[in-house]
């Protein structure tokens, strides 16, 4: 992208969020590098989704600043694509219509003629393995296919930053593994870092975070706050063999140690 190296793509400075008198997030400072795959994990109540909504511009922080390429975030914009937890697909649009929605009706398609837009939609549908399902409506799709549509809609707009809120939470374990690899492929993990987009990936799956991310941000709960940032120095490209390594297991375990007590408390409350 057009960013100066070493400048963060996104910078959060002492960001806090209150809902009435409830503190959802307390004093979070964090730099997100361009081309980085950043995962955020934490128990429920740690403000993960709040962080993502603020990055998307759907929520405003109560204190602190959030900078995108050095400029404060004022609202939602096509430079940051969001994949919502429950996908938020348009039920009246087919797979093709959903994937192409931003291109057809939003600024992402400006400067593209109809043929170019259609070509890109077709390419994206191919990329997320939805060939043959183009004319189906969301309610006619399985959970995994809906998730692919949401992913396709996200990348078709080619945003510089991809924000994903527990995108795989609703899927069964097997589909989740397959789609993790697909997300890595679309992020271009086999390309040099300069070719990649910036991803912020919210999850409650520690294994998932370790497998996907360059760094894992661990949040604590009540109030949500930064607990640790864990560097994941596993080599790329990662694949099934990665999960079997001792380093993978060690990282997962150390992150689990960080949030175990709160996670258990969260299930009891």
């Amino acid at each position: 992208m057009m960013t100066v190296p070493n400048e963060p793509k996104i910078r959060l400075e002492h960001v806090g969020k209150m809902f009435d008198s409830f503190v959802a997030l307390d004093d979070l400072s964090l730099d997100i590098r361009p081309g980085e795959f950043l995962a955020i994990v934490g128990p429920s109540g740690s403000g993960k989704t709040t962080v993502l909504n603020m990055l998307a511009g759907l929520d405003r922080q109560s204190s602190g600043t959030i900078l995108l390429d050095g400029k404060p975030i004022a609202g939602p914009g096509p430079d940051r694509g969001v994949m919502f937890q429950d996908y938020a697909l348009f039920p009246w649009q087919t797979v093709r219509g959903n994937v192409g929605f931003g291109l057809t009706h939003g600024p992402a398609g400006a400067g593209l003629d109809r043929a170019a837009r259609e070509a890109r939609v077709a390419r994206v549908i191919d990329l997320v393995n939805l060939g043959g399902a183009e004319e189906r409506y969301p309610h006619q799709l399985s959970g995994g296919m809906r998730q692919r549509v949401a992913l396709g809609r996200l990348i078709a707009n080619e945003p510089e930053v991809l924000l994903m809120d527990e995108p795989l939470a609703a899927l069964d374990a097997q589909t989740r593994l397959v789609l993790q690899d697909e997300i890595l492929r679309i992020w271009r993990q086999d390309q040099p870092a300069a070719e990649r987009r910036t991803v912020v990936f919210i999850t409650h799956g520690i294994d998932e975070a370790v497998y996907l991310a360059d760094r894992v941000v661990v949040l604590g709960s009540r109030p949500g706050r930064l607990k640790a940032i864990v560097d994941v120095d596993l080599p790329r490209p990662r694949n099934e063999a990665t999960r079997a390594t001792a380093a993978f297991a060690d990282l997962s375990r150390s992150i689990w140690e960080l949030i175990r007590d709160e996670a258990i408390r969260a299930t009891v409350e």
Partner: protein
Amino acid sequence: MARVGGLLVYLRTMAIFALAWYGLSLLVGSRLLLPSPLLVLDAVRQSALDGELLRNAGISLLRLVLAVAVAALTAIPLGIAMGLSRAWRDAFDLLVEMLRPVAGIAWIPLALFIFGIGSRLPIFIMFYSAFFPLVIGTAAGVRNVDARLLAASATMGVTGVTRIRHVVLPAALPAIMVSLRLAVAASWTAVVAAELVGAPSGLGYAIEYYRSMLATPTVMAFIAMIGVLGFLTDAGLRALEARLMPWAKDIRP
């Protein structure tokens, strides 16, 4: 198979009903009080042949279409504005809540004074009856549009009129269609009353006219026509719904 079976059951029920009616009419023995189904069938045939049935039905139907079209063209935009904007809601809510409970039918005497007897009276009454279900249903539908869909379109830079056209309107369409069906049903009820009192033509007028002529079989023929048209308009709206919303085919309750 199920369809054929359903048709058989339908015919059987209606046959039993007709038989019971026939028996009762023999018992009553007065074609003024309770004509037999055969006499009514004959009246249907006669009114159909001399064109009275279809002419009056056509007039009522035309008035319905006109009134509902005007109501839809005014109420749906107003409902969208009220659903989207607090300022519009504040401005119109009280007026709507004041006028809505006053049934369209209750406007008939005043409308008689304003419009006199003629086509404008039933059209106004039907418009009024259709307007409020539409405005309230549209506003509620727009307010209930899934906030995530609005957020999703905002993150794709889709805003303003484009968002209304491509997100708000389709998302509220199921609610709008439901209120349209309610509006048409309310209009149908109103047309009979309005024409009965204040129009020189139409189904309501015909019913009252033949009643005063003591032609009970013809009265019944016209009542049946109202039922048939009411059923057909609703079926038509359901077909329109299915066409406009193919995506809702399997999820509609």
